[in-house]
């Protein structure tokens, strides 16, 4: 009782006449001031404090404050990607507060958060995760579904593909083509197809990418006219070889050959020689297809494929030449066999290999001997034997 008597405050009343919003307004003013001079770190810290300590449901942080800080963060390519995380947080806060996000700011933030480093980072800042989070935030904001452009999505897809995240890249690509009805540039498809063809367990995904390219409006018979299209077809050829789908590989090369605008070269030649992997895949596909044709006794197909190989810049192996010659001999096609042999000789002599070596290789073959004898007889009956020079 004594204490209460001592502490009695009779006759004293307290009256707070200060502005209850003073702290909020003061901090908000600081945020705007820091943003206006481009001090993004300070502005971000103050905005966070404003959001956590002073904002209420009746007095939320205004959209202008978010926009001012976001602009400061997005300046100079997200300030060298260092301001990516604050920008992501602001975009998420804006989406949560149901504030509309300006299109140019959203696209700029997402694009500039992606770099060429591992994980899509730029000097270990930003990255794919931040970009995907931004995309999710923008899409969940009011009118956000139409904010991001195809260039932004395309950059995201290419970065995902270059980082080896093929499945995610294909998902975003599908979203672009099927749901957004975009027509991404061929380079985007080529990046994803290249990444899928590079990995062992994603070869089938290349076919999916080709399907999306068709769905986006591209014709496979024309895309070889541009480099990105040739890269896409080359990835298709590599995937076809991995899947042992010979028909698909040959079909893609034929499609490349049909493309106009590759003069003086032909599209299939350019596709087959676009990379070491594409050249190897093309050679293997032709070799296997010829061997299969020889096995099925299809001399016409075998000869046709063999004729295509030099046109596509591919060098047939000795076994391939021999198989075709043998098949022709089996089917008593001596003229064709001679022509093939002559081609073989000319190609090998052009590549400065000794002629004797070829004769040494081909002469032991019973079929070769029989066809030469047969052909010599026939030719003697009519015209001069041209193969006697052998």
């Amino acid at each position, binding site marked *: 009782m004594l*204490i*209460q008597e*001592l*502490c009695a405050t009779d006759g004293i009343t307290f009256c707070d006449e200060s502005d209850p919003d003073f702290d909020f307004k003061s901090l908000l003013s600081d945020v705007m001031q820091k943003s206006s001079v481009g001090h993004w770190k300070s502005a971000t810290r103050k905005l966070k404090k404003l959001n*956590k300590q002073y904002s209420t449901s009746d007095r939320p942080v205004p959209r202008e404050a978010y926009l001012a800080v976001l602009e400061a963060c997005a300046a100079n390519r997200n300030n060298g990607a260092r301001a990516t995380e604050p920008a*992501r947080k602001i975009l*998420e806060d804006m*989406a*949560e507060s149901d504030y509309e996000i300006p299109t140019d700011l959203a696209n700029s933030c997402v694009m500039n958060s992606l770099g060429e480093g*591992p*994980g899509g980072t730029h000097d270990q800042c930003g*990255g*794919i*995760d*931040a970009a*995907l*989070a931004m*995309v*999710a*935030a923008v*899409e*969940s904001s009011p009118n956000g579904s139409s904010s991001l452009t195809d260039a932004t999505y395309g950059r995201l897809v290419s970065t*995902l593909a270059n*980082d*080896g*995240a*093929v*499945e*995610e890249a294909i*998902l*975003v690509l599908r*979203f672009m083509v099927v749901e957004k009805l975009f027509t991404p540039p061929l380079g985007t498809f080529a990046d994803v197809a290249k990444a899928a063809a590079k990995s062992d367990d994603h070869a089938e995904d290349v076919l999916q990418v080709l399907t999306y390219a068709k769905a986006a409006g591209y014709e496979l018979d024309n895309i070889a006219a541009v480099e990105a299209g040739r890269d896409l077809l080359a990835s298709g050829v590599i995937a076809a070889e991995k899947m042992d789908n010979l028909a698909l590989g040959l079909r893609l090369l034929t499609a490349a050959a049909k493309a106009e605008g590759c003069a003086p070269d032909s599209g299939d030649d350019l596709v087959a020689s676009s990379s070491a992997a594409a050249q190897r895949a093309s050679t293997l596909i032709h070799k296997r297809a010829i061997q299969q044709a020889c096995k099925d006794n299809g001399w016409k197909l075998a000869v046709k494929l063999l004729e295509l190989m030099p046109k596509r810049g591919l060098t047939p192996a000795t076994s391939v030449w021999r198989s075709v010659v043998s098949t022709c001999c089996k089917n008593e096609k001596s003229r064709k066999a001679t022509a093939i042999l002559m081609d073989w000789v000319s190609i090998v002599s052009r590549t400065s290999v000794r002629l004797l070596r070829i004769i040494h290789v081909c002469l032991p073959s019973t079929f070769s001997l029989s066809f030469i004898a047969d052909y010599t007889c026939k030719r003697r009956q009519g015209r001069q034997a041209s193969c006697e020079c052998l």
Partner: protein
Amino acid sequence: MSTSSKSVSTAPMSATTSSSMSYDEVNKLAFRALQSECKQLGLSAVGTTAALRGRLLEHFGLAKEVALEKGAAPAVTPEEIEVRRNDFTIALQTYYVMLNINLTLIQLIAYSGALRYRWHHILR
């Protein structure tokens, strides 16, 4: 747009398992790791980082911890409010008493000093 898949290579989630994730571990997950984790647990993998994180925390029963850490006021009964008010009053009163005692002591010390000064002059 959902991009969750199993082939997330860059996300730091390899050290954790779905059955034993703490609040800090959930908070450390990157966006793709959050999506992947949500998908593995059969939760929706669509939404912002906060939404995905909230789903995971709720799944692991850590949502209450989040509320407390965010500073949200927990539910308090009127009895608890009364007890806290009494505690505060007692603490305030104790403070006043201590202040009074201190003032008294200071007065005593000053008075004794003055007396000593006076006696010093008288004795001279």
